[in-house]
């Protein structure tokens, strides 16, 4: 097949590829945003000095970081339907939809990683600054809100950016539960055209482009939040 023909073939499927891209972006975007909110209490509890508060987030993080996302996805999508209670509950209309299962799994998965990033960031806040805040008469809560969290966000942001890109790549497995994300669309096109080499390369190129765009975006955000400046003053 000559190049022009290949391009014509890709062009024919552009609308579907675009839809797939939107599904991927939607899933990843929602997962990393909601995941951040789930991760905040997890990360705070994980950094606690009491072992009984640490224990629960620790086991959560251990489970979600120690098993493959594909397995977690199957556990949620196929697994929980094993229980009659779940099938009778009001949640069933959501839990039988691949979209919600994929979103729930990805959110819980990424929350575990983000919680670890948060814990690392919180523990990297110089203790002198926290003590200074306390000495100025801030309550523990105020110190957390005005000193520790803004500082931790800047320390953890580069790692959070990496996590978003890792989630983007990890999201490629959701086609196994019939989601029509980039990979889902590519698989459908492949079974119609048999052009496996061509369309897997297209998939790779699409992910690569999204990765590059994300990297640049995070670089901008880092500049906007002056991540470098806070690093120098340490």
């Amino acid at each position, binding site marked *: 097949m000559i190049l022009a023909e290949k391009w014509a073939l890709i062009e024919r499927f552009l609308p579907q590829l675009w839809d797939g891209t939107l599904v991927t972006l939607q899933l990843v975007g929602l997962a990393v945003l909601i995941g951040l909110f789930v991760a905040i209490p997890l990360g705070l509890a994980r950094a606690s000095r009491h072992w009984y508060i640490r224990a629960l987030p620790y086991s959560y993080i*251990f*489970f979600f970081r*120690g*098993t*493959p*996302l*594909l*397995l*977690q996805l*199957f*556990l949620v999508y*196929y*697994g*929980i*339907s*094993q*229980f009659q209670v779940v099938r009778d509950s009001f949640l069933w209309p959501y839990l039988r939809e691949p979209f919600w299962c994929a979103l729930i799994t990805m959110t819980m998965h990424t929350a575990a990683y983000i919680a670890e990033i948060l814990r690392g960031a919180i523990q990297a806040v110089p203790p002198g600054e926290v003590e200074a805040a306390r000495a100025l008469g801030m309550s523990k809560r105020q110190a957390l809100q005005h000193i520790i969290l803004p500082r931790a966000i800047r320390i953890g942001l580069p790692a959070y950016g990496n996590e978003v890109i890792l989630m*983007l*790549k*990890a*999201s*490629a*497995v959701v086609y*196994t539960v019939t989601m029509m994300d980039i*990979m889902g669309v590519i698989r459908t096109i*492949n079974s119609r055209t048999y052009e*496996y*080499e061509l369309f*897997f*390369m297209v*998939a*790779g190129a699409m*992910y*690569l482009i999204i*990765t*590059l765009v994300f990297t640049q975006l995070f670089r901008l955000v880092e500049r906007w939040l002056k991540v470098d400046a806070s690093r120098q003053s340490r």
Partner: protein
Amino acid sequence: MPDLQGFGPALLEGTWMTIRLSLAAVSVGLLFGLLGASAKVSNNVFARGLGGFYTSVVRGIPETVWVLMIYFGTVSAFNALGAYFGYPRFSLSPFVAGTLALALCFGAYATEVFRGALLAIPTGQKEAGLALGLSNWRIFYRITLPQLWRVALPGLGNLYLILLKDTALVSLITLDEIMRKAQAAANSTKEPFTFYLLAAGIYLFLTVFIMGALHWFENRANRGYVRTEL
């Protein structure tokens, strides 16, 4: 203990396959990583460009895509190659394709780990080697490599744990490892939760075991060194 309905041995076979796959991939991947890092720190502009291209392209594309691409995307190429030598049905087995794909991804990340480790070795040692009249290869083999291992080990350990979880993706190209065995058991017993949870338990067990092994290796590699403590 849940009733496994006779699927226990199958799951054990799957576990063994996962272990074999991860070890095969890590061996090839370490080689890729060493080659990549050598290319990236080399004086040759072309080699540096190639190394940079390798890490940025491979790390920007999902592991799932690599696994599927290497398995399905090479069929016609290998058929053509095989036909040339008289084996028209020649193609990659799921094991070989999975090993290559995972090694490729592991290697790209390992390149960065090795590069960091290479830069951590004082250049004075290399110069000392040159002054003693050692060849470049001998300097690498006798001076750099033994120290590289010690510096790179923690990073490589993390990458190996990631690789272990990525082996589940090879179930998508029909290799009978834990994930696929659990899937088969789940389908025929209609108890998906039980078997997927069991598979998760196996992955966690392997993770803990590897973490212990890495700890032992790190201690061994660091004997004779004083650890920086805060």
